[in-house]
């Protein structure tokens, strides 16, 4: 056994046993962040905070939710909303956070794309981030099933149907996923398990991985500049805060993160109290009814762009297109052939590519919600879907042509 001296303070006592001072150094005071970054680099912490809100509000909801097709709807809409003190608050926080978290994820992703933060050592940050995106998507979808309203039921029906693989007609697989011929009790209880246990566990693990992947490459900065961290850190520690290119994560960077978070929370709670409807579709306040198909079936806004890639094509082609769209962002670090880590504005053709991609995703999103019966909208959707693939095909070519900065 190691030799333990008598500790003179609580801190020392903890340090002897847990190395808290080392942990503090590694994670906070000597975790170096470049100085040259803007508030977009606070989005990661905002995501972590929003996940925290989802977790806490979810735990409160879980105390009263009943995963049973006969009870689920009223347990949410009556018991939680009318009988449980502040149940409505937790539900609205949960619903708004589930929607807003995707807005922030998209901002976070497009920030990464804009500044080229996915290459030259940062590939794993991107890949673990994409895994988070996929798991969050599954988490959001499974959560959407729980109130067992009309949209829960019909979106569940439509999305699980995709697994029949078009002409493959793998209905056995669909039934296996549902646990029944149509969404029912078995379906609800397994999605409940996924939503409150397996997927949150996976998300927590992936967040740890994502943070881990940030450690060695460090976060990028506004100019994509390569920084000699050892030198910059020495300069900072010697007291020259002005000329050093880095700052410690805590408390200097954190103080800015918290300020940005404050601004975010003002907006967030404004939505929770005064404008939560956008996050809670009215159609889902009609109880699930397997005999009554709603006039329009559409997913939540954050899935609309990929849904629109599914729709304009024939059944099989649509499925293939949809499948590719789900995973193509994983390939970004490998399809971008340019050696430059720099903001898109300095990268010529890639600059155009970035804004086209953003606009295209917006157009796909808008069209994804509209009824497919309108010929004009269907055509716009088709063009946008084709543009999406054209952009991905163009990416390796235009980045290969890019001059080294």
């Amino acid at each position, binding site marked *: 056994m190691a030799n333990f001296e008598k500790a003179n303070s609580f801190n020392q006592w903890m340090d002897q046993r847990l190395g808290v001072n080392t942990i503090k150094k590694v994670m906070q005071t000597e975790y170096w962040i470049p*100085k040259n970054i*803007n*508030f*977009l680099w606070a989005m990661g912490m905002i995501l972590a905070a929003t996940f925290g809100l989802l977790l806490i509000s979810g735990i409160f909801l879980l105390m009263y939710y009943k995963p049973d097709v006969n009870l689920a709807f*009223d347990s949410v*809409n*009556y018991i939680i*909303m*009318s009988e449980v003190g502040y149940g*409505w*608050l937790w539900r609205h926080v949960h619903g708004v956070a589930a929607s807003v978290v995707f*807005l922030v994820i998209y*901002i976070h992703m497009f920030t990464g794309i804009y500044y080229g933060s996915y290459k030259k050592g940062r590939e794993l940050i991107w890949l673990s981030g994409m895994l988070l995106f996929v798991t969050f998507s599954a988490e959001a979808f499974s959560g959407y099933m729980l109130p067992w309203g009309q949209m829960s039921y019909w979106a569940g029906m439509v999305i699980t149907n995709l697994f029949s693989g078009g002409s493959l007609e793998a209905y056995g697989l669909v039934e296996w996923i549902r646990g029944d011929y149509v969404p029912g009790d078995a379906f609800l209880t397994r999605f409940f398990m996924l939503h409150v246990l397996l997927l949150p566990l996976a998300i927590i693990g992936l967040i740890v991985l994502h943070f881990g992947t940030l450690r060695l490459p460090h976060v990028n900065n506004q100019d994509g500049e390569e920084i000699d961290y050892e030198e910059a850190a020495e300069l900072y520690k010697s007291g020259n*805060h*002005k000329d050093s290119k880095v*700052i410690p994560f805590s*408390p*200097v960077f954190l*103080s*800015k993160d*918290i*300020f940005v*978070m*404050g*601004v975010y*929370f*003002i907006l967030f*709670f*404004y939505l*929770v*109290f*005064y404008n939560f409807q*956008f996050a*809670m579709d*009215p*159609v889902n*306040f*009609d109880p699930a009814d397997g005999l009554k198909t709603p006039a*329009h079936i559409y997913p939540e*806004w954050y899935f*609309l762009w990929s849904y629109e890639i599914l729709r304009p094509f024939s059944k099989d082609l649509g499925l293939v297109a949809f499948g590719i769209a789900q995973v193509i962002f994983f390939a970004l670090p490998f399809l971008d052939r340019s050696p430059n880590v720099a903001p898109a504005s300095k990268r010529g053709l890639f600059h155009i590519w970035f804004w086209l991609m*953003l606009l295209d995703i*917006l157009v796909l*999103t*808008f069209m994804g*919600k*509209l*009824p497919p019966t*309108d010929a004009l*909208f269907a055509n716009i959707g088709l063009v946008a879907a084709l543009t999406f693939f054209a952009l991905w095909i163009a990416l390796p070519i235009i980045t290969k042509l890019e001059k080294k900065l």
Partner: protein
Amino acid sequence: MNKELKIFGVVTFFTLFLYWGVEPFAHSQMHKHVESHGFTYDGTADIKEAEAKLAAAKESGNKVEKAEATAKAKKEFWANVVKISKLKGDPVAGEAGFAMCAGCHMDGAMNMGGVIPPSLNHAGSLYDKNYLIALIKNPAMAGNVDHKYKDTSMHPMGSVSSMITTDQDVANVVAYLKANKAGELTTKEAFTEACERCHAMRYAKTTQLGDTPKFKYKKDELKHQVKILEEQDLVKAYMGKLPPDLSIIIRARSEHFLETFVENPQSQLAGTSMPRVGLSHEGYEKVKEYLTEIGDPSKPAREAIGPWVILFFIIFTGLAFLWKKEKWNGHH
């Protein structure tokens, strides 16, 4: 700093653009626009519908005569209603006519032709005057559900026109209602009298048979449940389907939908069996308030707490800003 604000501007712009696209724009495209007519009833919408059907019939060459007759009947009917509404009704003379209404509309009435006739205790304030006139002249026409009947006197209240025959008598009964049955009503009474004969409201523990009492014995409770099911079967037979429970309809439909739907259900669900409920503006506000109390009970709490939470985060952000300034001192 300037650069940060510029980036913030770009992010805000795209966020608002995204919101516009998936909310206001999408809704404007997905739902057909129906004009509200401010809870006044002169048949304009009904006549327009009939004329549109006539035009469609002419195009297809199918059932043109029937469509023509319907359009004509509607025009005459509503012209007559407007005419009667100009007569000066005598509330005292109307009392005798009202006695006939009370023959069906009495406390503890039983189901009659599909529904239990509602209490008329507040009919004077709950319903619009023109609508009441129309209802007494021809309930199926008034409700814009004449398409359900070969002969509109088959409506469960259809026989009333044979009891109150002259236009002056109609004006008198309506004047009586406006003078004597127009007291203040609670939001719950508004719902009970206007909607409850068809729609249950389980979150308020109320059904087509009224509030569900508490029973001491399970046996009595089950007996009552059977009675409810029997009543609902009658409503279902009359309406073709059981009207939906309205517990949280306030969150399931937009305000605009509810308003225009109650004014004229055909405008939003063509061919539906729900009749128009000719509520006055005041009557509708009361019904809506009740639907809100039951379906969205946290509204007052939200309004009370909201400003404080937001104020808290404004102060939090201000303090965070000062902290940040202090920490970043000497870094630039």
